[in-house]
């Protein structure tokens, strides 16, 4: 009897030791990464700019590492659903959120998110920056923000600006222009930037901010005038246009960006491995061509740099939200 109990205890100890050993071996690390299919989660419907960035980078990543990279679209609630999905995913680097700057705006302006963008996520890398352009109908002959200000003085009811919706980056830029230049601006939200730009061309609204692909063709055709841009990156697409900072508009959050994030507990070495591969991918010419087509430029960063940038971005947006009373549900 005592011998069999001893045997049982011995077997249990061995099994316990094995299970502990195995579970610690199951800890993800850069050595075993990637261990299978990588999922890029996009919180928007397919075909949009975020989706394109995800697909272009994902395709190259798949080639480089020999594992399938699948893009999954979980649209809804301005990206909240996709982000919540990644926040709850296993922190082994196999699930990556490809997020646009709207992710940061949502965090800065919303009080009821099911996740905390800084605590539940860890940055991997920035991937692209897309400048936005202030456009006005060319028939009005306005060429600078100062002239826009002068035009606004002739309109007692104020000017109407369009955007892709309340809380979109276009809304924030346009609002800052109005308050910075000191005229009354009425916000007309649209379902998407193309509709807003369309109405600017038709002269129904006075100005709007738009990413390059929507605005530049009209500018070339002479139907729109671009009078400002969100950063010096805009120079690549529309040379000689002054930036908002140069025009004296303060507190602007800056260009739109696209970045990759993973769940917070993902080990740092996995993040660094992914980040350096993405940085390499962003130097490839075909990737740069696709990014130019969506009006942006490839920009990479280390995980820490991205974390810092995101924190700063969210803080900026939060300040804007408090100052101007913009709140998202």
């Amino acid at each position: 009897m005592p011998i069999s109990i001893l045997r049982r205890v011995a077997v249990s100890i061995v099994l316990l030791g094995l299970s502990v050993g195995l579970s610690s071996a199951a800890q993800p690390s850069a050595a075993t990464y990637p261990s299978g299919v990588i999922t890029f989660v996009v919180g928007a419907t397919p075909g949009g700019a975020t989706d394109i960035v995800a697909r272009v980078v994902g395709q190259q990543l798949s080639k480089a590492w020999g594992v399938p990279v699948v893009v999954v679209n979980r649209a809804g609630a301005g990206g909240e659903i996709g982000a919540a999905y990644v926040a709850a995913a296993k922190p082994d680097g196999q699930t990556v959120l490809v997020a646009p700057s709207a992710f940061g705006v949502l965090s800065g302006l919303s009080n009821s998110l099911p996740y905390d963008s800084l605590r539940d996520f860890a940055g991997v890398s920035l991937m692209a920056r897309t400048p936005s352009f202030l456009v006005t109908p060319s028939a009005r002959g306005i060429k600078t923000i100062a002239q826009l200000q002068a035009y606004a003085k002739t309109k007692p009811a104020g000017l109407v600006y369009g955007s892709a919706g309340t809380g979109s980056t276009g809304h924030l830029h346009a609002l800052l222009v109005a308050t910075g230049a000191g005229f009354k601006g009425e916000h007309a939200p649209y379902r998407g930037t193309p509709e807003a730009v369309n109405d600017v061309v038709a002269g129904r609204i006075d100005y709007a901010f738009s990413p390059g692909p929507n605005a530049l063709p009209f500018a070339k055709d002479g139907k729109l005038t671009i009078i400002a841009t969100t950063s010096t990156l805009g120079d690549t697409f529309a040379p000689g246009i002054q930036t908002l900072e140069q025009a004296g508009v303060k507190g602007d959050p800056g260009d739109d960006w696209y970045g990759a994030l993973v769940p917070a507990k993902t080990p740092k070495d996995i993040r660094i491995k992914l980040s350096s591969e993405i940085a390499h991918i962003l130097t490839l010419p075909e990737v740069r061509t696709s990014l130019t087509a969506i009006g942006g430029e490839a920009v990479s960063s280390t995980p820490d740099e991205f974390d810092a940038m995101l924190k700063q971005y969210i803080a900026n947006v939060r300040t804007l939200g408090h100052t101007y009373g913009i709140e998202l549900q």
Partner: protein
Amino acid sequence: MIGQSLLNLMQGFGVALQPHNLMWSFFGVLIGNLIGVLPGMGALSAISLLLPLTYTMHPIPAILMLAGIFYGSQYGGAIGAILLNLPCHPPHAVTCLDGYPMTRAGNGGTALGIAMISSFFAASVGIVVMIFASPLLVRAAFSFGPAELFSIMLLGLLAGATLSKGSALKGVAMTAMGLLLGIVGTDVSSGVMRFTLGFPELSDKVELVALALGLFGVAEFLQNVNRMQVIGGGTKVRLRDMRPSAAELKQSFLPMVRGTLVGTVFGAMPGTGPTITTFIAYAIEKRISKNPERFGHGALAGVAAPEASSHSKTQVDFIPTMSLGIPGDPVMALILGALLIQGIQPGTQLISEHADLFWGLIASFWIGNVLLVILNVPLIGVWVKLLRVPYRYLYPSALFFIAVGVYSTNNSLFEVGEVLVFGIAGAIFAALDFHVAPVLLGYVLGPMVEEYFRRALLQSHGDMMVFLDHPISAVFIAASALLIVFQFFFRAKHARGVQRGSEAFPVPQDAERLAPDGRSSTH
């Protein structure tokens, strides 16, 4: 100008008929057609699945394939709508209204034939319009501002109330239900979430595919649980039944033309989907028909006109999408995305900088439509024979495909729950003798009417007269007012007629539940 367009078109045919491009076009069209038959799983899922294929391809065959999937799925969508009351593609919901009763009467093949022919005709006309009127269309797109669009949508909403069979009050109630459902989500103009009941999945809107499939398809299945008959069974399906007769063709010619006109006109307005055009085409046909009471029980015009309008609208819609970058459809948005991945920017430059792509695409539209007709006409018999599968196998399989299809719209089980809820609701409505088509109309038009109304007022700084100041808008407002007045006048006349004992407008018994051999299936 026309000469130049013709020359470009010739070049386009040269590009589209190259064996490599033709092969990919055919592949896309085939996949699209098959996908179209599967409920819920629309071109969107198919294109996003096949998108990675296009990365390594040259842009031209890539876009030809994707476009082929797009309009191929629309041909396939009519099949489910007519044979099973399953609008596999939301614009086909209206086709269910007359197509399904025709199937129950044993004429499913004829309905399919008419649908195919109308689609082909309308697509061809749409392509011609696209080629020769594209600069006109682009300019027209700019002259439709929110005030004009509001007035047009308002007229559509009022006119579409005639879609209801039976009691007008019930029709209005269903439209109002649709309006309420359309409100669910985040309001564009204020950013406030309405009626989302705490579900983030509802903060964008109730999913149209879930609504259409639930109200039409799942509701129908739920009702038929205790009535397991084979549709169209009993009568032998003869080859003659599968082809529309010459008389039937003649009957559906004018509705086809009118439907095409409606679709083309709406094609010029960016951002309005094909679903609206189908409702309007149907409503017009019902209004000007000599026997409006036949609508809802198997009128040919009720199949021909909506199909025609949907297809011509889709074709003409390519123009604002390509040249303005405003996709009329999520699928077009995806195709635009595919172009962007290839580094091609849609816009006014697309036509000049990538002429071979643009004209090759247009030529391939027509070639693709021809391929689809060749594919589908012989298959009509096959699809109709599918109905002979006993209900107890057919319906559960269809439900399975519905669930899968609806899941694929957003990779989320929430939509499957939605389709179930709407299916149950639809079955309850049907049992209470409410017809559900107006729900879809209210759902599609309501949010647009509100959005354009508020935007128009925003742009006019609160001046209500903006709707009458703009000439196009004023015309439609006047038409809406006339419609309301006419309705009152007509009802008053009818009431007086009934008082005098004569039936001015014989109200038929609801003949929908007639079994194919003429016996009425009593509850």
